Every structure is written in structure tokens, then in C-alpha cells.
């Protein structure tokens, strides 16, 4: 076969969300790859600027259905820091419990999706079945399976009762057993190993060059985890360790995620057992003093960054969200060239992409056949008197 252009996406069974790869393939080999993001611009950042701090949190949870708690916590954490409010320890523990449960359900979901991408649907069904247990716990704690709405500026909205603590602690061993089972399966399942080992290999240097984050980076031996490097909540008080592997391929990323599953489980258990007594929230002021802050958070997929600028009102003047998927895309494009066509779903799935969260705008002029981005100045007809530059320009 000569060279053909194969469009993968925006509607494609391997990618559940819209993204487009223009793959130029020579037979089964990929010779060139063009990535086209952003079919799903939702304007959340703009919408967030028009809502006060109470109403913005449910909106931010909806940036992503999987890491909903991450976005809300990252934002709340930033605002609290600006307001110089310290939330009570019990609230911190509860936030951590929800965050780690969220990481577990996200990684279990990922494991299933990765298995599905290589056609191993049995594992897909099993992991999603076990993920249901985590979701049940979250539902019990927060009252909802997806959008937990646990955060508010100054603490958390709901307490975890003693009964809930006991019932979750009772169900953790089952999950632990399952995770141990997945460790065995990942190491022993032949066809999966064939498809994962050596695929999508990225060296440590490449990871650093492309700025990949999260399990993608940790699988290549980059010991980078916001929870350790810039501790927030109670991560510097509870026992846990950063999981790294040196394989650098999809198999390594699988091992990192499964390893993080048991780490998260340990953290949840520790937090539940050592839940401090006390208030679950403090009263925070309505408005935040003007200032800028960069709030970093380790979402299940990697480092999530919220840049918040406030102007002394009860709304953020500007919110910029950098999701981990955006940081990881370049590494995917690099890992794909020269690979087999059949590896596309595997390598793409390995970063656990979350596409709607990643939407960025570009202007495409079809007549002139050019692409460009708009400078900030042109988006602001009225002069705000603020100098451009810094993180967001």
C-alpha cells in the first residue's frame, strides 16, 4: 500500500471524545501525524469569571467528569490562600479522602479503557465493576457519584460520619484484594504485555523536554508529583510514596497507575482511621483581596494548574486552567511517529486524555489556509490598564 491519509477522529471508536489525528500512514506504519484539538470549546473559564465563589465551584467541577474534585479543590485552595484562610484539619482530611478515592476511580477507569483499546474487554468489564465500589463510597460520602460538591471556600460541605467511616473501612479490603489481582494480571496477561511493552516509549530526557506530567512522566523515572514537591492538604503529614517506574512505555504507565491505586487506598485508609475531630469549615470572607495565584494540584492524570487573578470582589477576574492532558499531548505526538497504526489507541489512551478539559482556541482561516492565535490585547477592546505578560499572554 502506498501512503494514505487516515483520519482518526473527531468521531472514532477509539477516542470517546473529539480530537482529530491526521495520520499519514505507509501501510501500517505512521510516518507523520498532525494533531487537531479543541472541538469542544465550552467557555468555562469565561463563565467562571461571572460567578461568585459560591456558585463557581459547581461550574468548575464540570470541567471534567472524572477529576471533578480536583478542579474544585485546586480553585478553592487557591482562593483560600489568597484570602489567607486556613481550613480546619478535619476538612483537609476529608478533601484528601475524596481526592484519593477520585484518583482510584479514575485509575480503575483508565485500566479498563486501556484494556478495551487492545480489545481485552474482559478486563474492561472487571475494572469497571470494581470501580463501582469506589463510586459507591464516594456516593455515600458526598451524595453523588460524579460531581461530589464537597468543597466550599473555607472547608468542606459535608462531614463524614462515624458510621460512614466504618462502612468504608469495611469495604476497603475487598478493593485491596482486587488491586492485588490486577497487579498479577498486568504482569501475566500475555496479549496485553505484547501490546503494552515497548510501545510509546519515552525516555527521561524526552519527558523533561516535552514537559509531560503525572503517571506518564513517572513511568519514565521522573520523580515528579505535586503532592510531594509542593505539598497541599495533608500530603506532607500522611504516609505515602511516589510511584515511579523506569520502563517509559505503556506498560510502565500501567504499573505506575496500579501502584498508585494501592498507594491511594493506603492513604484513604490512613485518613479515615486518623480523621481528626473538629470543625469542617471556617467562615471565609465573601470577597478575596486582589492578587494572583497559581494553584497546583496533582489530579489523577497529572499536575493540574489553576491560575487565578482576583480584584477584590467576590468573583475571579481571570481564571486559566491548564489540565494535565494539555501538558501530555506533545509527548504523545512524539511517541507515535514511526509506530504501528494499531498503536495509536494504546499510546493515546496511555496518557488518559481528557479532551474537553483541554480545549484551546485557534483561529483557522480556510481561505488563506493559515492558523493563528489571538493575542490577549485584541480580545480586550477597552484598555484595562494592565500590562500584558507573565503567565497568561
Amino acid at each position, binding site marked *: 500500500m502506498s501512503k494514505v491519509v*487516515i483520519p482518526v477522529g473527531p468521531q472514532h471508536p477509539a477516542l470517546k471524545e473529539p480530537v482529530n489525528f491526521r495520520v499519514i500512514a505507509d501501510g501500517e506504519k505512521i510516518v507523520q501525524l498532525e494533531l487537531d484539538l479543541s472541538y469542544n470549546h465550552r467557555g468555562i473559564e469565561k463563565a467562571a469569571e461571572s460567578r461568585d465563589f459560591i456558585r463557581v465551584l459547581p461550574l468548575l467541577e464540570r470541567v471534567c467528569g472524572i477529576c471533578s474534585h480536583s478542579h474544585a479543590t485546586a480553585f478553592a485552595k487557591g482562593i483560600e490562600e489568597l484570602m489567607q484562610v486556613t481550613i480546619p484539619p478535619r476538612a483537609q482530611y476529608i478533601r484528601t479522602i475524596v481526592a484519593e478515592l477520585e484518583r482510584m476511580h479514575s485509575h480503575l477507569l483508565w485500566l479498563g479503557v486501556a484494556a*478495551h483499546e487492545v480489545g481485552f*474487554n474482559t478486563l474492561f*468489564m472487571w475494572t469497571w465493576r470494581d470501580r463501582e465500589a469506589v463510586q459507591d463510597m464516594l456516593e455515600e460520602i458526598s451524595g453523588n457519584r460524579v460531581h461530589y460538591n464537597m468543597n466550599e471556600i473555607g472547608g468542606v460541605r459535608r462531614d463524614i460520619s462515624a458510621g460512614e467511616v466504618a462502612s468504608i473501612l469495611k469495604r476497603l479490603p475487598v478493593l485491596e484484594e482486587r488491586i492485588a489481582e490486577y497487579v498479577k494480571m498486568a504482569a501475566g496477561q500475555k496479549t496485553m504485555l505484547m501490546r503494552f511493552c515497548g510501545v510509546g516509549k519515552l525516555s527521561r530526557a524526552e519527558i523533561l523536554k516535552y514537559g509531560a506530567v503525572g503517571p506518564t512522566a513517572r513511568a519514565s523515572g521522573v520523580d515528579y508529583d505535586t503532592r510531594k514537591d509542593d505539598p497541599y492538604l495533608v500530603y506532607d503529614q500522611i504516609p505515602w510514596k511516589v510511584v515511579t517506574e523506569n520502563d517509559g512505555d505503556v506498560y510502565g504507565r500501567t504499573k505506575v497507575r496500579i501502584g498508585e491505586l494501592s498507594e491511594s487506598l493506603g492513604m484513604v485508609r490512613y485518613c479515615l482511621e486518623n480523621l481528626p475531630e473538629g470543625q469542617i469549615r471556617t467562615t471565609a470572607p465573601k470577597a478575596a483581596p486582589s492578587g494572583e495565584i497559581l494553584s497546583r494540584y496533582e489530579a489523577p492524570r497529572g499536575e493540574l494548574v489553576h491560575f487565578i487573578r482576583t480584584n477584590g470582589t467576590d468573583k475571579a477576574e481571570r481564571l486559566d486552567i491548564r489540565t494535565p492532558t494539555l501538558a501530555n499531548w506533545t509527548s504523545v505526538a512524539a511517541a507515535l511517529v514511526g509506530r504501528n497504526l*494499531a498503536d495509536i489507541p494504546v499510546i493515546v489512551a496511555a496518557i488518559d486524555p481528557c479532551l474537553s478539559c483541554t480545549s484551546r482556541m485557534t483561529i483557522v482561516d480556510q481561505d488563506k489556509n493559515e492558523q493563528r492565535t489571538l493575542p490577549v490585547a485584541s480580545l480586550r477592546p477597552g484598555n484595562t490598564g494592565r500590562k500584558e505578560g507573565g503567565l497568561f499572554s
Partner: protein
Amino acid sequence: MNDILYLVLYVLVFPGFLFLLGYALFLEFIDRRITARMQHRVGPPWYQPLADFIKLLGKEVIDPAGIDRKIFDAAPLIALAAVMTAFIYVPVIGGSPLAFEGDLVLALYLLAVPTIMLFLLGWLSRNVYAAMGGVRAVTQLFIYEVPFFLALLTPALMAGSWSVSVIAEWQQQHLWFALLQPIGFIVALIGLQAKLERPPFDIPEAETEIVAGPWTELTGRRLAVMHLAEDVALVTGCGLVVALFLGGPLLPWDVGPAWLFGIAGFFIFVAKTLCILLILSAIKAATGRIRIDQLNDVGWKYIASAAILQVAVVFVMMSAGVIS
């Protein structure tokens, strides 16, 4: 006159086409059910394959721009006809009345027809995914066909006949070939799985890579007939393996009147095909899809050499006079 009537009934009704179609849908149901239960799901109700078939028959047939409609209409039918014909030579209630010396080879060739048709469909549908799937289908065909043929021909070598029914009868007097030639049996099962394009060999229709491969542009009744052809191929394939390796529908001893023998044979046939299906479903549930280049490696390195090894072993056994 009676003979002709018997033949017509045999081919058209039982255990011929009518039974075959029903059994094909039944096996599909069992397959889906077993897989579902292994995955801890409930699975479809028994009438699901039939309901799917009828629903697809009623759906609109869409012609992709610029295709040859005649070929698109004919290809699924040819595939179905081929596998149904192949089934006539599979012993179901005792030896097939239409058996002739060499029907094994004919049946094997007929079983390859659906793959060829898929390639044709993929190539002609002017869709990159379908074309890639078509190319993958033939590439895969070249890889598994050789070991599959070799594995199925080794029983013929030992039994000294190229007729499926005769080979089944031979095992009545001797041992099952599954015991005599275990390597060949395993290779045959793997080859069958590959032929039916089931995981880990569902490379041509890899959903997450190339949408549905050659199936992408099939719609309505074309899709329905092609699915049915696949189901029939499943029955025929299982039946062939049963006849060649598990002694077919025959009891090791003679029982009473011919009709009782036939009925007993039928139940044995069903039981044995279900066993084969269980193995195939287990393989399907326990594996992911491998890549075509990996299949190439594995196929030639291990599966083909295993088949050749089996042939060599058979020659040694025969010259040593282990089996008379």
C-alpha cells in the same frame, strides 16, 4: 425415490440448512452468553441473535458513493452460500450421505471464502478503514491458513482418507485424534479462532483502530447476511474440528437401530460443538487483540512450526507402525 427425498430433506431441513441456520444463531447466543458470564455480566436473552438478524434485515441499505452495488449485494450471499455448502460435508448424525473422497479439502476452501469476500468488500468500499481492514484480513489469512490446513490434514494422513466422514469413522475404531495429535488439535483451535476473526485475532475488524474494518460500509441486509455467514462459519468450523479431532457424532460402539444411532449422534454432536465453543469463547474472553506484525511473528515462528512438527510426528508414528 426415497433416497432422493432423504437427500433433499438432509440438505434442506435436517441436519442441513434449516437446522444449520437455527443452530448458528443458537451458537452465537451461547457464545455471547458465555463471554458475558465470564465478564460477570448477564448477557443477551436467547432470541437476541435472531432479533438482531431480523432488525438488520429491515434496515435501510446504504450504498457508499461510487461502489459496485452488485458486488456489494452478492458478496455476503456468496460468503453465506460457501460456508453453508461446507457444512453439508460435516457429519452431524453419522457420516454425511454426500461425502466423497476429498470433501475435506473442499470444505476448507469453502471456509476461506468469507475472508476473501471481506477483503473484496473492504477493498471496493472506497473507505480507508475498510481497505485497511481488507488488507489485514488477507494478510492474516496467509498467516493462519497454512498451519490450519496442515493441522486439519494430519488426521487425514493418519486415517488414510480425505473425507471428513471417513476420518470420523476411523476414530470410531481407534482413538480420538485430539489424543493422538494434541499439537494438531491446539493448532486447529487457534487457526479456527483466527479464521473466525475472534480475539486475539480480530485484527481485521479492530474496533478501536479501524472502526469495523471491511464491515464498516456494510449496512442493512448485507450486514445481516454477513453476520449470519460468520455464525454459520462458527458452526461449520466447530463441526469440522469435532469430526476431525473428537470423533464426530459417532459412538465408539454400535447401538440398536439406525434412527437411535442418529439421535444419539446428534446429541453427541451438539455436546461436542458446545465444548469446542466453550474453549473458543474462553480464548476470546481471556485475550486482547495482538498486532498484525506480532501475529506474523507468532504465526510463522510458533504456530506454523508446531503444525509442521505435528506432520513430522505423524509420519514417524505411521512408519513406526504405532497406528495401523
